[in-house]
């Protein structure tokens, strides 16, 4: 899509609809350090599910600040997928230029406008028609230079009948580092394609995150869009949008959130069911500790026959200074649509604690087991080996609990 630079410059001063407003002038635009893939980068990437030691055997894309540090397609999948820097895809394919900025508006707010004004960086991934990848594709976006705005734009096309798992991990070099991550992701899921897109993010108290995501599903396409955030984040705001365009399309958006410190997070999920028999499910399990504040906005609009939607939010409060706020919205324009929501916020149940303690676990062990159980990974719809590895990542992240 062609963008209008004048409008973009105007949009640079437009705050996002939700979340804390940031002054982009307080951040660095370019990396001031020479990027190096060292042991720190490898260790922190592993903490967000991206194993760089297996980079030679797994399809991998590693971007540090704005530099593509590594990319490779697993040998057995060569010819099944295309993975390249977005810049390269835009130069090579006119149709990619057409899709670019189609699902997310570059004028939406200052973050999208900033992103659109910069030279594009990020990946283009195309899973070719009918190809089924049983091994995950891993991508890592690493913030390296202190104070930097890491601006990323990814575009994914799952062609008809294809199937893939994508794990993207986002993190940074040092826990106290200042910075801003603006991640634009546009996902096109063609008829009958199945895609599982799972993000694992770990940030710090001085880091701000503004993901902007648009997904479109054609006939009988199915997507699981999963977001896992563990620990501390300065501020986070996102409201990924999915349009279920084709008949019988299915989206499951799941969030697993473990928020501590003084984190401020405004997370949403917005689905529009436009095709007959569309199914949308938004699920959040969130644990709030310390002074963390979480707002959950779920919205499902149904404008198609026999559409079904469900929003579920479960919150666990582990501090009196924390806050969880849920705002579910259901809009139906069809008599035969069925939209439901449920939300429950509470503390750890004493009955569960006593039950586990009667088995010999100490109170602390029992609490930890309940919190781990609460951050249940089964809604992510992952194959068991990925489910186990993400469970381990969560367990390690909350080890101190």
């Amino acid at each position, binding site marked *: 899509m062609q963008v209008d630079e004048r409008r973009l410059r105007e949009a640079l001063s437009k705050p996002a609809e939700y979340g804390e407003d940031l002054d982009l002038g307080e951040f660095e635009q370019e990396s001031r350090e020479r990027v190096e893939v060292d042991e720190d980068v490898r260790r922190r990437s592993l903490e967000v599910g991206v194993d760089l030691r297996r980079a030679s055997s797994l399809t991998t894309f590693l971007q540090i600040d704005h530099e593509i540090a590594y990319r490779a397609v697993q040998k057995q999948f060569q010819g099944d997928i295309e993975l390249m820097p977005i810049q390269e895809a835009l130069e090579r394919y006119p149709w990619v230029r057409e899709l670019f900025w189609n699902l997310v508006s570059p004028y939406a707010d200052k973050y999208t406008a900033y992103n659109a004004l910069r030279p594009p960086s990020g990946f283009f991934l195309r899973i070719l028609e009918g190809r089924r990848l049983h091994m995950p594709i891993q991508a890592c976006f690493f913030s390296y230079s202190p104070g930097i705005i890491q601006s990323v734009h990814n575009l994914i096309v799952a062609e008809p009948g294809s199937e893939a798992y994508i794990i993207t991990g986002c993190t940074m070099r040092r826990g106290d580092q200042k910075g801003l991550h603006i991640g634009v992701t546009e996902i096109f899921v063609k008829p009958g394609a199945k895609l599982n897109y799972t993000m694992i993010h770990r940030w710090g108290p001085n880091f701000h995150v503004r993901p902007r995501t648009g997904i479109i599903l054609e006939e009988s396409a199915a997507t699981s869009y999963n977001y896992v955030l563990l620990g501390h984040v300065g501020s986070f705001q996102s409201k990924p949008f999915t349009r279920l365009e084709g008949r019988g399309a299915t989206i499951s958006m799941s969030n697993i959130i473990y928020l501590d410190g003084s984190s401020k997070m405004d997370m949403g999920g917005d689905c529009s069911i436009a095709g007959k028999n569309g199914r949308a499910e938004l699920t959040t399990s969130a644990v709030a500790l310390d002074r963390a504040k979480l707002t959950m906005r779920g919205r499902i609009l149904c404008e198609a026959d026999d559409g079904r939607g469900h929003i579920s939010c479960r919150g666990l409060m582990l501090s009196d200074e924390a806050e969880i706020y849920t705002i579910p919205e259901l809009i139906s324009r069809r008599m035969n649509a069925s939209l439901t929501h449920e939300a429950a916020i509470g503390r750890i149940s004493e009955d569960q604690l006593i039950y586990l303690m009667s088995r*010999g676990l100490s109170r602390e062990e029992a609490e930890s087991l309940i919190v781990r159980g609460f951050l249940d990974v089964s809604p992510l719809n992952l194959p068991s080996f990925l489910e186990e590895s993400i469970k381990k990542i969560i367990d390690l992240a909350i080890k101190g609990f």
Partner: protein
Amino acid sequence: MLRVENLHVAVRDRLILKGVSLEVGDGEVHVIFGPNGSGKSTLAMAIIGHPDYRIVSGRIFFDGQDITEKPIDERARMGISIAFQNPPKLHGVKLKDLLARIASENGVGERFLEIVDRLNISQEHLNRYVNVGFSGGEIKRCELAQALASNPKLIILDEPDSGVDVGNLELIGRFLSESLRGRSALIITHHGYILRHLKPVKAHVLIDGVIACEGDPDQILNRIMKDGYRWCERCRLMRGV
């Protein structure tokens, strides 16, 4: 193994047990009968150390130690275990993970898999969350597996035979008759079905928070079956309790 002395227990401000005394020797299986609301579960909860059950007076001794003041988890680690009647659901905690955890903490290791096998717990059941969507029989078998996975010295079974079908009852009965060998056990039962498979050495009848009657389990059960608990009421009057 277990000695309860003149135990008075209150739940919130209501006194439920009003002076219960009993003793279970090493390797002995005892049974507690009693009508609904007589205090059977309260006795079980007081023995395991449930914090909602306040011991007003009296003492509990286990394995030679006074455990009256000990917290629930410590008692469990000393070797007391329980199969609950109505356990809570543990969302996100898989049965196999919990069993493995209990077993490893008690040095049972992989042997818990034998218990699982003997209780006919399927892989599918093991992969489900504890008590979430379990049938009545599945709950009972899951409770027994947990209670035995810690290799306890004393096991308390709170109504192991209520709400289970005949097939499950057979299986549970056979399992218990093998698994209780060499252990002390206190079995709480309202209607005594489980006694078709187990031969306890002694029965205690609890009525209105006191032991109204004690003796041979078969004889007592027969009388209860024939005359109901009214017979025990009279017995209690005769004993001047």
